[in-house]
């Protein structure tokens, strides 16, 4: 027996919260995308010309989308579960006939959906600046969905772990943002000196951006299969942590 209506209620509630603030939900990623295009695409693109044979403006599109999707997934999902814990409204979720997996499906599903929509909006916005070319649309969608889901799972974990708003910001600020910036959003990690290139390969985000960029231009820093394997590893890792929270009731049930 699965409480589908319960999952749908959480999902709809979370999506409704997004809709209420539709302006800021969309405005902020769109504005930053435009700014990135002005700074990187136009200002630097006029000097750099091409990267891996792709015009620089177009080259940064996949990275930009990933940057936004990663950040949005983590912040939406962490906030989505942290907020009811903070205000106390979580009591209702905990006293409802919902399994932990159903709670996760509702919250993570909503956070991931929102990220995917925003990813699509950023892609559309980018289309106004550079001609878009997507070589493998299905792979593109695959990477977009997997990244949104995985990082929403991570966000959910952060939202359960955090016991204050500072901690809620801490991981995105200290880990996610640096990793995305150093993950080859705006450059190819192959351009780095060998030492830094090796270091970069520790960064999981490199594989995501590389796979995603490959789906656009058939150009990646690593092979497609490496990217697919890495995203599978992240997803698995997140699921293991989620399962642990489920077993111990960690921080959700006292």
């Amino acid at each position: 027996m699965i409480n589908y209506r319960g999952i749908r209620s959480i999902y709809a509630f979370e999506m409704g919260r997004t809709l209420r603030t539709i302006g800021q939900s969309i405005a902020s990623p769109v504005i930053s995308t435009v700014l990135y295009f002005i700074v990187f695409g136009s200002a630097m693109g006029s000097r750099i010309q091409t990267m891996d044979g792709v015009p620089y403006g177009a080259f940064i599109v996949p990275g930009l989308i990933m940057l936004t999707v990663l950040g949005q997934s983590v912040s939406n999902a962490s906030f989505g579960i942290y907020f009811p814990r903070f205000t106390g409204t979580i009591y209702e979720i905990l006293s409802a006939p919902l399994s932990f997996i159903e709670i996760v499906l509702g919250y993570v599903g909503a956070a991931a959906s929102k990220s995917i929509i925003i990813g699509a909006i950023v892609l559309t916005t980018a289309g106004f600046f550079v001609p878009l070319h997507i070589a493998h649309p299905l792979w593109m969608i695959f990477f977009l969905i997997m990244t949104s889901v995985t990082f929403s799972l991570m966000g959910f974990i952060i939202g359960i772990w955090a016991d204050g708003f500072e901690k809620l910001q801490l991981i995105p600020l200290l880990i996610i943002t640096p990793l995305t910036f150093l993950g080859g959003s705006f450059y190819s990690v192959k351009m780095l000196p060998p030492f830094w290139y090796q270091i970069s390969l520790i960064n999981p985000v490199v594989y995501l951006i590389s796979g995603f960029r490959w789906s656009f231009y058939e150009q990646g820093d690593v092979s497609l299969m490496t990217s697919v394997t890495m995203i599978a590893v992240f997803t698995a890792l997140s699921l293991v942590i989620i399962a642990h929270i489920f077993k111990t009731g960690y921080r959700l049930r006292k």
Partner: protein
Amino acid sequence: MTQPQTAIAISSLTKTYANGFQALAGIDLDIKRGEIFALLGPNGAGKTTLISAICGIVQPTTGSIKVCGYDSVADYRQARMAIGLVPQELTTDAFESVWNTVSFSRGLFGKPRNPVYIEQLLKNLSLWDKKDEQIRRLSGGMKRRVMIAKALSHEPEILFLDEPTAGVDVELRKSMWAQVRALQQTGVTVILTTHYIEEAEEMADRIGVINKGRLIVTESKDTLMHKMGKRQMAFTLRDALQAIPPALSHYALVLTEGGRKLTYTYDATQNGNDVSDLLEQFKTHHIRPTEIDSYRSSLEDIFIQLVEA
């Protein structure tokens, strides 16, 4: 499967919080179907912890809880379906409308939409004209009624009210009592906690007194007041009495006000004949009361007596 007479059966329930504090130290309690049960206890006694354990918000450390025959852990879905909870704290989603938040609660419990039921619910709680209002625009008393509507949205058999009338004015409190009684008429079992003893006295069929994580006593209200209650009779005398006659020494009599007042304290559990015997004795000893006042201790006195024991 379901024992028709027992709504909730709790046995040997303990709860030790992560910091090592034991909030429940072995609770055994049966709540009967259809009754209003009041849980009384001082701050920190463990009332909220007990309710939270039953509702699935707190994980019990040991012991078992059955709700309508379903184990609260193994069969948590069926167990929780039967329960509606109004928590102690007023926690609501400030920006949601009344209608949406109540419908949301119903959805969480997996029930199909039923606008007719929700409409009736909101009307019963005098919230119908506020149905499209954002919750943050409601008064505290209205918010509490929204919480009650949320708890009742999935048509539960058992309703928990954790201090439902804290900070609620007298008028609204009375109207909430009436609503709770009306709920009981529809067959809902109600468990409420309160600090207002008059509330328990007014509402409850049975009373449990909890202190330091233990249930000190569980009795029907009448039995409790009968058993624990002290009764006193004060006789104002026409003629001052020098001393209590030795023949009356086995009665708990106290002479005050210069021999003009005689106070008799007796135990309600003892035979009721006492008073008439005493009056006979008065006659024999030419004691003539001009006035008789009788007192019985309130639940409040009993409560203080229990908790301080």
